[in-house]
C-alpha cells in the first residue's frame, strides 16, 4: 500500500483522490472528506439547514430527496456532538462504531445530496417569505429554514474550571483522553455521556474515578452495569468545589454532601459531562418561542415563526443520534409538504 509522508509525518495511507490528498497535505493529517469550496455571494435555495449534526444531515438527505434544493451550514465541526463521541453502540445497524467514523459515513452520505458549507455561521435572518439569511461569507435567499443547532456541554461553574480549560480540564475524552494514558483523572457526571466517557478513559489506560453528585447514576442500565463491572471507582454524593493547579490541573477539591467532608484529590485531568444546554443563540436572535426548559418550542417541527422549523437536541427529547436523525427526517418531510402548499417565491 502506498504511504505518503509530508515533513516526515504520515499523511496518507493508501491511494487518495487528488483533492483529498491536497487537503491531507494542507492539514498534515489524513483527511477522509473533501467538501468543495463555493465562493458564490448569493445562493437561492428552498431550504437552509443550520447545523451539521445528525439532525441537520439527515434532514438534508430527506429534503433533497424530496426535491428541495437544500444546503447545510455548520459553523464548527461537522457531525456535531457525534464527533465528540468516542464510541457509539446504539445506532441501529451498526453494532459498534467510533463517533468520528459515524460522522464520516453521515457526511459522505449527505454530500451525495446537499451542499455543505462548513465554517459558516448565520449572522442575521430577515423575516418574510422568502427569508434572507446572511452568514460570515455570503447571503442565502431561502423559502424555509431548519434550526438543527443541537446542544453543547454544560460547565460546572467552579473556580479554576475556565482558567484550566484545555490544560487538564476537558469536555471531550475522544479529543483529549489519549493525553492522559497512565495518569490519574476524574470524570465528573453520572449520565450516559459521563459513563461512556469514563469507560473510554479506562480503556485508553487512564486511572479514572467517577464523581457524581447524587447517590445513583443517571445512565442507562446497560452503561451503569458496564461501569460497575469495569471496577472504576465512583464517588457518590460528591460535588466538585474547585479545580486547582498552577500551569495545568493538579487536583480537585470535592465535597461529600452527606458527610460534609471536603477533600483534595490529586489528578492530572478533569473530564466534565454534566448535561446539555440547547444551542439557541440563533433562535433567540430570530425570536422564536422557547419552552420553559429553554428548548425551541415546536409542533411537528414548526416553530412560532412561519418558515422556520427546528429539530434534534435543540428541541429537547432524548438526546440520541437516532432520535435526532429521526427528527431531521420528519422535519424535512414536513417542510416539503408545507412548501408544496405554498406558491413558489
Amino acid at each position: 500500500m502506498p504511504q505518503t509522508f509530508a515533513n516526515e509525518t504520515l499523511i496518507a495511507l493508501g491511494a487518495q483522490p487528488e483533492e483529498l490528498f491536497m487537503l491531507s497535505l494542507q492539514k498534515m493529517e489524513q483527511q477522509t472528506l473533501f467538501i468543495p469550496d463555493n465562493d458564490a455571494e448569493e445562493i437561492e435555495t428552498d431550504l437552509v439547514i443550520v447545523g451539521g449534526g445528525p439532525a441537520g444531515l439527515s434532514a438534508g438527505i430527506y429534503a433533497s430527496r424530496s426535491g428541495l434544493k437544500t444546503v447545510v451550514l455548520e459553523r464548527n465541526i461537522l457531525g456535531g456532538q457525534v464527533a465528540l463521541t468516542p464510541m457509539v453502540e446504539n445506532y441501529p445497524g451498526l453494532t459498534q462504531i467510533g463517533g468520528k467514523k459515524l460522522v464520516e459515513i453521515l457526511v459522505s452520505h449527505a454530500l451525495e445530496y446537499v451542499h455543505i458549507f462548513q465554517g459558516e455561521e448565520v449572522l442575521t435572518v430577515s423575516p418574510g417569505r422568502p427569508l434572507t439569511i446572511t452568514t460570515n461569507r455570503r447571503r442565502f435567499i431561502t423559502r424555509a429554514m431548519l434550526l438543527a443547532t443541537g446542544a453543547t456541554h454544560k460547565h460546572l461553574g467552579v473556580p479554576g474550571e475556565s482558567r484550566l480549560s484545555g490544560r487538564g480540564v476537558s469536555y471531550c475524552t475522544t479529543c483529549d483522553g489519549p493525553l492522559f494514558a497512565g495518569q490519574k483523572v476524574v470524570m465528573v457526571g453520572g449520565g450516559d455521556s459521563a459513563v461512556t466517557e469514563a469507560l473510554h478513559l479506562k480503556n485508553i489506560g487512564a486511572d479514572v474515578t467517577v464523581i457524581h453528585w447524587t447517590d445513583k447514576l443517571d445512565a442507562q442500565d446497560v452503561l451503569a452495569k458496564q461501569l460497575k463491572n469495569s471496577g472504576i471507582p465512583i464517588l457518590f454524593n460528591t460535588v466538585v468545589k474547585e479545580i486547582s493547579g498552577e500551569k495545568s490541573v493538579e487536583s480537585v477539591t470535592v465535597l461529600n454532601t452527606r458527610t460534609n467532608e471536603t477533600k483534595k484529590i490529586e489528578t492530572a485531568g478533569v473530564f466534565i459531562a454534566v448535561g446539555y444546554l440547547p444551542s439557541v443563540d440563533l433562535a433567540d436572535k430570530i425570536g422564536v418561542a422557547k419552552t420553559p426548559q429553554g428548548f425551541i418550542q415546536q409542533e411537528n417541527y414548526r416553530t412560532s415563526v412561519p418558515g422556520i422549523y427546528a429539530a434534534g437536541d435543540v428541541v429537547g427529547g432524548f438526546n440520541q443520534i437516532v432520535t435526532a436523525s429521526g427528527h431531521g427526517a420528519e422535519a424535512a418531510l414536513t417542510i416539503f409538504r408545507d412548501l408544496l402548499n405554498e406558491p413558489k417565491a
Partner: protein
Amino acid sequence: MATPHDHPEESSQKEIKTQLQQMFKKMPEEIPVVLFARPGKNDVFADAARQALQYFAQLTDKIVFREFDLDHKQAKKWKVSHSPTLLIAPEKYAIRWLGAPVGEEGRIFLEAILYVGFGQTGISDASRKVLDQIKDKRHIKLFVSPSCPTAPPRR
C-alpha cells in the same frame, strides 16, 4: 521492493512506442533526467532504472539523460546519497526517485516526466484552491512497492 519484470506484448508495445513518441514531440520543454548510481549498490535496480531511461531517451531528444557516480560533485550538489537515484529536471523541480521505475510505477514515472515536459499537472481547480492555502513548505515522500502491471489495479 519487487524485482523488475516485463510482460512483453509485441504489437501493443509498438503502438505504445509510437504513442509515446508523438506525446514527447508535443512537449514544449526539454527534460534533463539524471541517474546517480554506484556499481555494486543495488545493481538490479540501477540497471532497471538505466534501461527505462535509455528506452525513453531513444524515443525522443526531449529527454536528456545523464548518469553520474555517487562520488561525482553533482551528487553533492543535489545531496544524493542513494544508489540508484533519479532526478527529474533538478534545476527546476525537486523531484527525486529512489529505486527503479518498474512495473506499475514505471507508468507513474512517465506521468511525472510528461507533467514536467508540458509544464502542467492538470490538477483540478478545487485542488488548486487547497494548495493556495498552504503557506509553508511541504517535503513529500511517497513509498511504494512496484507491483506487476498485470495485477488487478489497487485502490
